[in-house]
């Protein structure tokens, strides 16, 4: 079959990998975790989301967001798309997606649920107060309940991870994001993941967070707390003069683009 060597073909697998990301972005963490699980070396570039680099904007002109993975000069934006690319380009190495077509469909469905429903609901809790927040919390609980049902009786019953004995695509997608739940609980004072109401979800999250590659990837909880506190003050326009002093990494991001930063945490890719 005639196949032109076009600008569109995959580069050789040995070509260098460069990841543009943001340290507090769960979407970035997904890609970092996936690369580590697959044992792939990569260069990491920390982007200031309030002042994005020309290189990032060149690689993602449509959305202008992180993460972007550049493989041998070819740019790949959108975390879930990047993760599937890693499986397509390195099929022999620690697959993230299951082999069976139906199981793959399930994984993709729940990944979309995570980004389309659960993520925005969690973001809404974080960005609101009072009755609005109560409504958002109910939404989060409804969403978690759906996952709990799947873990208890449904598609994922009896499994340690959504991917089975080992983490897969859905674990990476849900997991890199779920660590914010405890952080947001702390910052907002709202109960999100009751261990009694969601025992299996809690057990899964605990097992996920205990993995070496995950611990390498997720920032320390005190950094996340500090970042989240600063962000919440911005979002709610509270007199935040005596909020914990932001770290060196946080201020430009939080100050310059609070809604963008909040969006990058939970809502937007």
């Amino acid at each position, binding site marked *: 079959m005639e196949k032109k060597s076009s600008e569109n073909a995959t580069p050789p697998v040995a070509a260098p990998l460069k990841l543009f990301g943001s340290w507090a972005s769960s979407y970035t963490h997904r890609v970092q975790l996936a690369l580590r699980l697959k044992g792939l070396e990569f260069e990491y570039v920390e982007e200031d989301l309030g002042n994005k680099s020309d290189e990032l904007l060149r690689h993602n002109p449509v959305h202008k967001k992180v993460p972007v993975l550049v493989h041998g000069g070819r740019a790949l934006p959108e975390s879930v798309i990047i993760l599937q690319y890693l499986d397509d*380009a390195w099929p022999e190495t620690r697959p993230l997606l299951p082999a069976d077509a139906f199981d793959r469909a399930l994984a993709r469905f729940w990944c979309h649920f995570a980004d389309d429903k659960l993520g925005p609901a969690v973001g809404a809790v974080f960005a609101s107060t009072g009755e609005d927040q109560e409504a958002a919390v109910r939404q989060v609980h409804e969403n978690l309940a*759906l996952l709990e049902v799947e873990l208890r009786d449904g598609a994922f019953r009896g499994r340690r991870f959504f991917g089975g004995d080992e983490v897969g695509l859905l674990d990476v997608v849900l997991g890199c994001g779920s660590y914010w739940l405890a952080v947001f609980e702390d910052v907002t004072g709202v109960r999100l993941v009751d261990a009694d109401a969601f025992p299996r979800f809690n057990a899964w999250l605990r097992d996920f967070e205990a993995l070496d590659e995950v611990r390498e990837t997720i920032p320390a909880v005190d950094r996340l707390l500090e970042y989240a506190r600063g962000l919440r003050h911005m979002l709610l326009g509270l007199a935040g003069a005596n909020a914990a002093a932001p770290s060196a990494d946080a201020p430009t991001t939080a100050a310059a683009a609070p809604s963008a930063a909040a969006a990058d945490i939970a809502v937007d890719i």
Partner: protein
Amino acid sequence: MAAAAGVELRLLGEWLSPYCIRVKQALAVKGVAGYEYVEEDLEHKSELLLSSNPVHGKVPVLIHRGAPVCESLVIVQYVDEAWAGPAILPSDPYERSRARFWAAYIDDKFFPSWEPFFKSKTAEDRAETFKNAIPAVETLEKALTECSSSEGKPFFGGDSIGYVDVALGGYLAWIKAVDEVAGTSLFDEAKFPRLAAWAERFAAADAVRDASPAVEDIVVFYKKMQAAETGAEH
């Protein structure tokens, strides 16, 4: 692994839904025939639909040997993987990522930017909302150039209909119907020659013709909808 008639494969859908249309188009492209199609009344959803899609309760749902697959793009990928037949997604990993990227763009950016135009009722509103829909169309014109390359292949999928084609294709009959009623041309031939040519070729393809509703039928529905001042949920 040919689908036997009836119960082996069932599609729960609604004739007007772009997401159902695109699944039908994908099934046709893949050469999957003999499935049972169930037209759902979205005001009175069937037990089968609600139990097959407990999370969203929405169409389309593809039920294969009793196992439901939900979300149109998830279904399209499933169809591509579960049946032999012409490939819907490309085989090259990078090209696959581009196809996924543009399909997501179509649903997450293009459609939301067009939707206000679809909902507009006055000439004034229409002028404003139509203008706001154009930037996404410009982006898609560039996308088609990227996907079809300098050789000017007819589809986003190259020589044959692929993933991005059905992603956009699900909306095409609606786009034409609204253009007809509003007196506009979203994929204007002068401004967007490649998209205009794509729209014509896509609509003329056998697989698509059989899988898509007639534009005239949508026009009738759309006019009624506008007159009744109800928003359509699709």
